[in-house]
């Protein structure tokens, strides 16, 4: 059984790291989690980002957050990636399977996955 003592140990470990990550979050992954997004499958997409950003060791430079309706319900699940000094990248009709390439090529490699973006989808 998971215990609060284990949580206490996590706290102590994390406290040491806090100083390290201040000010270094330079990419922001935002997942639309309004009713339209949730119904279309946003929850597993969000969780795949949380999981894989951590597995790729990117938690210091990438934050994964949630937002309400992005306003293009027919393209849900929608994920936006923000980076200072760059244009926003909008990924549409996302699935958990598409997350691996975005983490590898875009969040790690710096090159957006063009065929998952809105410009490439039939309007």
């Amino acid at each position, binding site marked *: *059984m*998971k215990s*609060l003592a*284990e*949580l*206490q140990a*996590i*706290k102590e*470990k*994390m*406290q040491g790291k*806090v100083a390290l990550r201040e000010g270094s979050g330079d990419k922001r992954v935002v997942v639309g*989690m*309004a*009713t*339209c997004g*949730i*119904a279309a499958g946003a*929850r*597993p997409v*969000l*969780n795949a980002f*949380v999981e894989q950003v*951590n597995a790729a060791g990117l*938690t210091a430079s990438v934050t*994964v*957050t*949630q937002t*309400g309706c992005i306003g293009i319900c027919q393209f849900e699940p929608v994920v936006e990636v923000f980076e200072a000094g760059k244009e926003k990248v909008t990924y549409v009709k996302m699935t958990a399977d598409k997350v691996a390439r975005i983490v590898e090529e875009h969040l790690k490699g710096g090159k957006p996955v063009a065929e998952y973006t809105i410009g490439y989808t039939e309007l």
Partner: protein
Amino acid sequence: MKDLSLNLLDIAENSVKAGATLTQLLLTQEGDILTFQVVDDGCGMTEEILRGVTDPFYTTRTTRKVGMGLPLLRMAAEQTGGTMEVESRHRDAHPDNHGTVVTAVFHTDHIDCPPVGDLVATVTTLIQGHPDADFYFRHTTDTVQVELDTRDLRAVLGDVSLAEYEVLQWITGFLQDQYNPQET
């Protein structure tokens, strides 16, 4: 919605949006009846909004754009022969005890009853997205009672965020252990 855990996530998002400091997610299974309840201390709804979300005919008489979340929950409950109700006290009229209670009743033996789905993912998703809000989750069935109170975790964590990956992992394990007590 594919399953009830997604409705639960969606309805709880309304509570967070309403500025709730504590949102309670209460699921109680008794025989073939599942009671699904979200209780929050957010701003509450004005009479007008409350009428809009509970009266199915109200929306046809106005041009105001109405959301999907509560109507979807109502539909899901009613198609099992169940019910959905919203009680709300708005901050202006009830400055000291405002908030909203959404209660849906499902007949789980009905063929159209959606599966419960992944409640653990719903709880961790809410916490990941809103680490500064508090959530109390309780799922009671004939065989288990699963509980989580973020206020207890916050007391241990101090200024370490509930959205830290390791903390979310711990929460997942903590809930799963309660669902499968024999395995540990």
